[in-house]
């Protein structure tokens, strides 16, 4: 039985749906496709001529030492970074979680650094850690020797890692805190009555119930660090000697500063594939774990 209002309904649904979706297709999906297409040519982004080169860019990229270097550097920022931020985040959240007292003060202080842009944080820490910076002048005043925190290729990645952890842990703590506060206290009460110790309570109640927050936070950190650009760029411009050149910094440098748009596009595609594979597997694995823990 045909409903006479069908066409008008469909039209109104279309009006709601189409603008947003068209914007997404045109401004996100289309560029990805274009990126893929560029990678098959040898365009520099400026000249009007370009020729099809097939998989040449991709095969050259896979042997590119800069790409492998950036993969190593990105992994060094991502894996320890995610582990530290989430480990500390859960620890701090458990410590902060009380009713009353200074809890809200702690929460605001922890939350605050995340609001500040990576550029501002980067310059502040640069002023602190640079060889002639504030931390070193304090060290020297106390009789020690200045340390090249961000000028040494050996120390720079560590400085970057720790600054990132400093920047993000507070925010993650606040997220976990919200997750903790959603756990009903009766669970803890009955566990205490049964004689469970603090650690046992954490393992059987707290950690399982934090699983959804854990999934969100880990994915958020992981994908964020894999795409890291702002902080290393401001702190050391990807240096010294490429010691902090993450994948994103490499791709942008190749495509824009070196005017190798097509080659840069192939690097970008590799970056997209790597991140997608890791993000999807990690999400799938964490969600499975979530389901097992919260039956």
């Amino acid at each position, binding site marked *: 039985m045909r409903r006479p*209002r069908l066409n008008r309904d469909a*039209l*109104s*649904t279309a*009006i*709601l*749906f189409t603008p*947003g*979706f068209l914007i*997404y297709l045109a*401004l*996100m999906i*289309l*560029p*990805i496709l*274009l*990126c893929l297409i*560029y990678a098959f040519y040898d365009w520099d982004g400026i000249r009007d001529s370009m020729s099809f080169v097939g998989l040449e860019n991709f095969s050259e990229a896979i042997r590119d030492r800069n790409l492998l270097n950036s993969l190593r550097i990105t992994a060094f920022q991502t894996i320890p970074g995610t582990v530290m931020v989430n480990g500390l985040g859960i620890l*701090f959240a458990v*410590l902060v979680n009380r*009713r*009353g*007292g*200074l809890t809200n003060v702690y929460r*605001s*202080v*922890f939350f*605050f*650094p995340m*609001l*500040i*842009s*990576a*550029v*501002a944080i980067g310059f*502040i*820490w640069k*002023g602190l850690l640079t060889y002639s910076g*504030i931390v070193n*002048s304090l060290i020297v005043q106390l009789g020690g020797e200045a340390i090249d925190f961000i000028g040494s290729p050996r120390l720079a990645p560590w400085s970057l890692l720790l600054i990132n952890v400093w920047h993000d842990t507070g925010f993650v703590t606040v*997220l976990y*805190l*919200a997750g903790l506060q959603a756990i009903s206290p009766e669970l803890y009460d009955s566990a205490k009555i049964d004689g469970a110790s603090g650690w046992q309570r954490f393992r059987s109640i707290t950690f399982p119930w934090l699983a*959804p927050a854990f999934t*969100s936070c880990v994915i958020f950190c992981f*994908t964020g660090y894999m*795409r890291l*650009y702002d902080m290393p760029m401001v702190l050391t*411009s990807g240096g010294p000697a490429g010691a902090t050149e993450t994948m*994103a910094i490499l*791709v*942008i440098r190749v*495509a*824009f500063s070196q005017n190798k*748009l097509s080659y*840069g596009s192939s690097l*970008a595609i590799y970056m*997209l594939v790597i*991140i*997608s594979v890791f993000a999807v597997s990690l999400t799938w694995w964490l969600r499975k774990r979530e389901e097992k823990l919260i039956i």
Partner: protein
Amino acid sequence: MRHRERIRPYEIPGEVVRNVFLILICLLFVIPFYIAVVNVFKTREDIIRYPMAIPWARLTLDNLKRNLNSRSFNVWIGYGTSVVLSSLTVSFVVLTSTMMSYVLCRQKHRFFKSAYLLLIAGLMIPAPVILLPIVQVLRRLHLMFTVQGLLLMNIGWYMPFASFVFVGYMRTISPQFDESARIDGANDLRIFFRIIFPLIGPAIASVVIFVSLWTWNDFVGPLIILGSSDFYTITIGVYKAIGQYVQKWEDVFAVVFLAILPVIVFFLFMQKQFISGLTSGALKG
């Protein structure tokens, strides 16, 4: 109803240790900002000699005055561009994304389910993959080095996140509302604007806070797309003013201070809304 947990006497040492530890951690978070802010108002000699102290007699506003409108950096252009960009991005994103999310949330057809997956996939796309081609597209449209061009890129970029939040939130609104309105003869448009939109306030607040903050702090986008334009966001303005060599700390800290001051002020006044808006939005799904 909140009530303080009674602290039993044997728990006092534990409480003291816990709070001391947490206060130390708080200091760790606060001290770099303290150093940055305190040194804005000191002369260079004072910064070098006493980085952590506050020489009350010798405080000065010179650093700030010098950097408000120097040759390379006009803080008002920075603020203005950032405010315009943030507000326009947020407006477009919220409007189009709420409408689309309503459809994505209610329609059961496979097309819409796939469309939603496609949108969520956008959450993990790295910026370079979008930036490289968008520069070419904007160039063809003569929108490179313009705020409008950057605005276009921003709107697309935040659609996945906004849709994620809105769909998640709308799923908690009972379809009964839709059904009763539909029986009365309303179509989707009317249901959306009359019923759904008024109900998603908290989700909109979350998205507004997140997207304005991220747009304000955005670095790569304006760096590449605005480039050497006459307009710069406050973040890029700071970056260009300081450049690669950080020697004149009194200027560095002054400029950084100008950049973060609006955010600090906002935060101090709206702490509660900030935190609840962000945590409720981020924990959905």
